[in-house]
């Protein structure tokens, strides 16, 4: 009897201790969880400095921790190479990057949750800066969670004067206040295969190809010619989407009513026509089929691509032996060097990342210095482009490169920076709306069924509305 009670007691203590052990380990694991954030290299240096010389830094009222929310490590790289490494970070401040990958809206969900808890969060846990993309920029820009880059952060008109206008329009709220700033400009061009252009048009000279493709009617005519020679004009349905959606006459939503712009319907009709006549390969963006159309075996005339797409994605896809397998990015490997760029029928942009300062931050001075260095400083911007081929958001720096002997071996010796520099000032993004991301995705998804011949146009439009209203219950048809 007593034995059993003893046994019971022993079991109890055992369970209790094991639970206590759990409690013990919880504290360290908690802290690691809270900072999936990777503290940057500046962190150890900063804390060291803080312990050594606290008195000399006493006049600064800034918080000790600067939290930056983002979805990949691209900006972290820029920050480290051009801000932290040159020693621009004030002593005593630790910068945390809280990275949530973009899939399934996960980044926005994480950011929203953090912003909604901004008031109650401890000073060092608050969001200080966050990164956004163009398609949903207005969601944050029109909210009270982002700060005015001039009034609050303290950038001047002179600082921002060299930035391309469209990069400012995208992050300007309904009352005309600019709430974000970016180091990239991402004008789009039409990248074509030189050998196919020669076969179809008899020339691969960018100026002459541009003359043949300068509006949509000419573009269609070339598509027909290309088909006659056994080539496809475009790869998939959505390749040309952005050139149409960036040139709409009005935003997606008027009040609460969804308005399908005529230009989008032009995309629908053109793409249906191309699909039925076999001018495209029925692929979708980022699919393996789409990527292989850009490779040596591809029979596709060209692709609409912006700055990063040409230098990274297209270049990577064009190689016969990928760089990961020991191939070199040089002429002779796949169709490297067989590409060229021209403006194409309409101006557009694709991609880009904007920096916003979050309301409630206690690091305004550092944010000001980060934004100024990484998005306004001409010397830094030029250096980024020279080092990484990324096209940066500074007209003076870019024009300087455009007029230099800068050339790309991948594009057969063409100076594509010159074309980017010509195209970027013409981009007009005054017609964006906070609903762009969701509505563009729903529209492309619904129309794919129409292009595939599963449904007629009316049904596809109905499906679009159904999907749109599911995403945005506040809108009307």
């Amino acid at each position, binding site marked *: 009897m007593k034995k059993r009670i003893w046994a019971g007691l022993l079991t109890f203590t055992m369970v209790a201790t094991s639970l206590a052990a759990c409690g013990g380990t919880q504290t360290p694991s908690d802290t690691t969880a809270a900072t999936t954030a990777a503290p940057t290299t500046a962190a150890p240096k900063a804390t060291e400095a803080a312990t050594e010389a606290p008195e000399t830094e006493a006049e600064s009222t800034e918080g000790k921790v600067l939290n930056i929310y983002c979805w990949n490590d691209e900006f972290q790289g820029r920050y480290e190479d051009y801000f932290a490494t040159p020693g621009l970070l004030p002593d005593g401040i630790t910068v945390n990057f809280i990275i949530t990958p973009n899939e399934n809206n996960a980044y926005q969900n994480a950011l929203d949750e953090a*912003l909604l808890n901004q008031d109650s969060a401890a000073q060092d846990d608050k969001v200080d800066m966050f990164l956004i993309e163009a398609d949903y920029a207005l969601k*944050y820009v029109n909210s009270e*969670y982002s700060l005015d880059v001039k009034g609050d952060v303290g950038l001047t008109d002179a600082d921002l004067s060299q930035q391309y206008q469209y990069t400012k329009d995208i992050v300007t709220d309904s009352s005309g206040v600019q709430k974000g700033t970016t180091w990239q400009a991402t004008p789009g061009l039409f990248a074509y295969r030189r050998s196919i252009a020669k076969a179809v048009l008899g020339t691969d000279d960018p100026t002459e190809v541009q003359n043949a493709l300068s509006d949509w009617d000419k573009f269609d005519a070339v598509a027909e010619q290309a088909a006659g020679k056994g080539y496809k004009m475009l790869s998939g349905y959505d390749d040309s989407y952005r050139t149409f959606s960036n040139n709409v006459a009005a935003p997606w939503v008027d009040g609460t009513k969804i308005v399908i712009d005529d230009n989008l319907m032009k995309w629908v009709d053109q793409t249906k026509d191309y699909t039925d006549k076999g001018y495209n390969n029925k692929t979708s963006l980022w699919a*393996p089929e789409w990527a292989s159309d850009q490779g040596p075996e591809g029979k596709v005339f060209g692709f609409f691509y912006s700055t990063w797409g040409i230098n990274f994605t297209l270049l990577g896809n064009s190689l016969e032996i990928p760089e990961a397998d020991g191939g070199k990015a040089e002429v002779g490997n796949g169709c490297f060097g067989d590409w060229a760029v021209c403006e194409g029928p309409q101006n557009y942009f694709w991609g880009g990342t904007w920096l916003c300062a979050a309301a409630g931050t206690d690091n305004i001075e550092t944010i000001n210095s980060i934004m100024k260095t990484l998005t306004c400083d001409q010397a830094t911007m030029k250096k980024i482009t020279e080092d990484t081929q990324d096209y940066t958001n500074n007209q003076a720096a870019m024009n300087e490169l455009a007029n230099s002997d800068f050339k790309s071996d991948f594009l057969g010796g063409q100076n594509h920076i010159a074309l980017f520099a010509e195209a970027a000032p013409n981009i007009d993004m005054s017609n964006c709306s906070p609903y762009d991301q969701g509505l563009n995705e729903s529209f492309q998804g619904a129309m794919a069924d129409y292009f595939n011949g599963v449904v007629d146009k009316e049904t*596809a439009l109905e499906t679009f509305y159904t*999907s749109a209203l*599911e995403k945005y*219950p506040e809108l009307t048809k």
Partner: protein
Amino acid sequence: MARPVKKKAHKGGVNYSRWGYFFLLPFFITYFIFSFVPLVTTFYNAFFENYMSGLTKIGPNFVGFDNFKSIFGSDLLKYTRNTVILWLIGFIPQILISLLLAVWFTDTRLRLKYTGFFKTVIYMPNLIMAASFSMLFFALFSDNGPVNLFMIENGFFKEPFRFLAEIWGTRGLIGLMNFLMWFGNTTILLMAAIMGVDINLFEAAQIDGARSSQIFKYITIPSIKPILIYVLITSMIGGLQMFDVPQILTNGKGTPDRTSMTLIMFLNNHLFSKNYGMAGALSTLLFIITGILSLIVFKSLVGSPDKDGR
């Protein structure tokens, strides 16, 4: 010997019957916190307009039955039909093949060898996560995927068949995946049922000259009816909640033309705007449907032994 010890224990002053309740307590506490409370708040949410518009919260405003009205006004019937179709094209081959395999594996006259090996192999697909299984099929059956390449090289197709752009291509793949994932599980359940039947019945039938088909029809099927019903209803409830396979295969869009959009995928769509009201109303409807089906399984399971005279 055993009885006196037991009595003695009671006299000793430790009341063991009370411990039973203590040990049940963790279950009831976790059930209450993690199942019951969310269940009730789901019903409650169904009557409110409550969603996020960007970063602004709309509601909660009480709207009565408006959420239910708009759900019935939407394509609810279409998604219900999709769900049932997707379940049936997976379940019908699944139950047929499983029955056949279960009968073969347990047949004393066939004496199949290596049944243990086959039982393990057919159960394998169930061990793979549905999400990775869908990814695998997505790659296999893509426009330039291995399946299309094989079919073209061997002259079966002239040009790639775009499985995921065709209604029945997509539905067929989803059915095939559900079939592959679940037929092993069902086979093992049915084998257990058949092995529970008195072997004398089969032997008597054989001596009387019954053919295999007759044994199957008049002895096997009636004897395993309760398990068969159990398999049917659990699979039906699983089918109603079908989500991961079509979600991953169609990238959450239920393409083409939402013909592979299941009820739970429809529910998941409301996550985009964190629409608690609509999602709550839809969940409530699903709860009612699943409840009714569970009631049916309960009735038939309780009722059947008497009818079969077992």
